[in-house]
């Protein structure tokens, strides 16, 4: 049997997927300080339970910022290509994807077979990234995972700062004016949705768009985004590992 593994070494977490024509298993661990160590470790955790070793794997494919680990991978692809391929496998009806990551956000449009046609990345600043949510949630003394529930029925406050640093002082100002935490959280999510929709406007989406990354679990943000963009958003199963899955599939198809 032919096995391939895709490993996506991101700045926050390292994801791995085992593939043999179908996704067999996946693992996610924190990247920590050593991307290469994280890569080795996740591989071991993925293979052991299956009774496999490195020699059983015909192709080890790397992606993510840590893909440049010398010598570890047989082949590497950018996370853009891998995300598109992974999403296309899981949601064949999607024509593109939005990935809100910890450090950057991506909007990718793809065609048949998940081949990338255009993409927009935001990684020069925190605006529209998970980092923005993290920093602003901290200001409010909250966890990112709490945000969706809090914002559910709230009336979004107007938040204009896209910069995480300035948003922090804006939030403090709003709190001082007596605006509720719920409204502020809803406002924050709305400002992210707006920002991402501007990026998405550059790619001409028609139908269903996949929503990936850890933040995709936030239902309120998902609804706001789909309103802003005017497309149906679908969250693929295990949205964090689509890049690793895509890498494994690309390797399998080589």
């Amino acid at each position, binding site marked *: 049997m032919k096995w391939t593994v895709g490993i996506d070494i991101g700045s926050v977490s390292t994801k791995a997927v085992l593939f043999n024509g179908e996704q067999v298993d996946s693992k996610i661990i924190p990247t920590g300080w050593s991307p290469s160590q994280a890569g080795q470790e996740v591989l071991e955790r993925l293979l052991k339970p299956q009774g496999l070793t490195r020699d059983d794997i015909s192709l080890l494919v790397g992606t993510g*910022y840590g893909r440049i680990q010398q010598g570890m991978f047989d082949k590497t*692809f*950018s*996370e*853009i*290509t891998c995300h598109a391929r992974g999403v296309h496998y899981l949601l064949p009806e999607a024509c593109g994807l939005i990935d809100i990551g910890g450090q950057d956000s991506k909007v990718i449009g793809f065609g048949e077979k998940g*081949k*990338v*046609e*255009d*993409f927009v*990345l935001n*990684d*020069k600043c925190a605006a529209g990234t998970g980092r923005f949510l993290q920093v602003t949630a901290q200001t409010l003394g909250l966890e990112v995972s709490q945000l969706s529930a809090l914002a559910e029925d709230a009336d979004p406050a107007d938040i204009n700062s896209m910069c995480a640093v300035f948003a922090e002082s804006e939030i403090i100002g709003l709190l001082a004016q007596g605006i509720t935490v719920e409204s502020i959280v809803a406002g924050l999510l709305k400002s992210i949705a707006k920002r991402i929709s501007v990026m998405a406007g550059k790619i001409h989406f028609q139908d269903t768009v996949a929503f990936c990354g850890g933040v995709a679990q936030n239902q309120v943000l998902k609804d706001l985004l789909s309103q802003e963009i005017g497309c149906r958003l679908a969250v693929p199963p295990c949205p964090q590992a689509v890049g690793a899955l895509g890498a494994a599939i690309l390797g399998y198809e080589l």
Partner: protein
Amino acid sequence: MRAQTMAYFDQLIPSGMVMAKEAKEQGRNVVGYYCVFSPIELIEAAGAVPVGLCATKQEPIAEAEKVLPRNLCPLVKSSYGFAVSGKCPFFHFADIVLAETTCDGKKKMYELLAEHKPMIVLDIPNSSNLEDRQAHWVKQIYRAKDYFEKNLDVKISNEKLAEVIRTYNEERKLLMELVSLNKLHPTPISGTDLLKVLWGRSFQFKRDEYTAKVKELIAELKEMTAKGEGASQPSSKRILITGCPTGTGQEKVMQVIEEAGGAIVLQESCSGIKGLVDLVSEEMDPFEALAEKYSKIPCSCSSPNTGRFKLLSRLVQEYNVDGVVDITLQACHTYNIESYSIKEHLKKNHNIPLLQIETDYSDADRQQIKLRVDAFLEML
């Protein structure tokens, strides 16, 4: 494989610095200029050596930011920084400076620079369809002529100018012959080497030696291709570079593309072939001919800039290009805005995708550029 003749071009700019000093000691006049709009034939016809002053290094930017705003194109900041810090021998040894009213950043920077060197600023009309454009340009060429004659104490004759025009046309033809070698696949010369040759053109004092070396390079490259050797792989995607000028010292985007396995075929920018594709007419009156040629530079400072669209259309076809990378410097509004229209144009008419890379001269964004470039090459 790299041509051995490249060794000459590797040392062109450093040795140009030494020669700038020697030229001054021998009593030669040196005229600095900044832009492809500058009619350099006129400088040569005035018996002076034209040297390019556009700076593309990060190093002097901190010095420039003491005066200039941070949020300004790095080319403007770097040029100013080199000029005022005294670290650029070309600026230092220039007797006078020829400038031009192109983008706002440059225009206003020249006002500050005028305190450091005598300079003439040519008035370049921003609308490319100004009715009396040719007449206006002719006036500007004569203004420059008068300024040179007065300040360098020379006379510029019609004959001398006509002769320089012929020589420069030959040089342009030769350089285009070199560039055209990259119509072959795999490409015989890398994009960064081609940049070195073309960029070096504006920093050298022995034009005969330079053209002889270009001929040698062409011959060597032809030999290499005959043996099946090239600068890229048969599988390499063919990339055209467009956008803001990219000089040596700042070729990081081009390096990233080549490291990722892309073949840079040529550059449609000022640092590439923008100023080389059109010759100066040898039939017309030489002053009128100069005006005509330089008024047609397809720079984004002109509006509308239809010339760039036409040129790109021609190049992507002639050079069989797979994808276009548009290098935009931060805070360069004209190229930044035009990127959208160029992208649409290429997609609609040629089904060729464009990747815009917005960057500056620092090395901080190399990884981010790499991700975009890798993804772009994978999608082609």
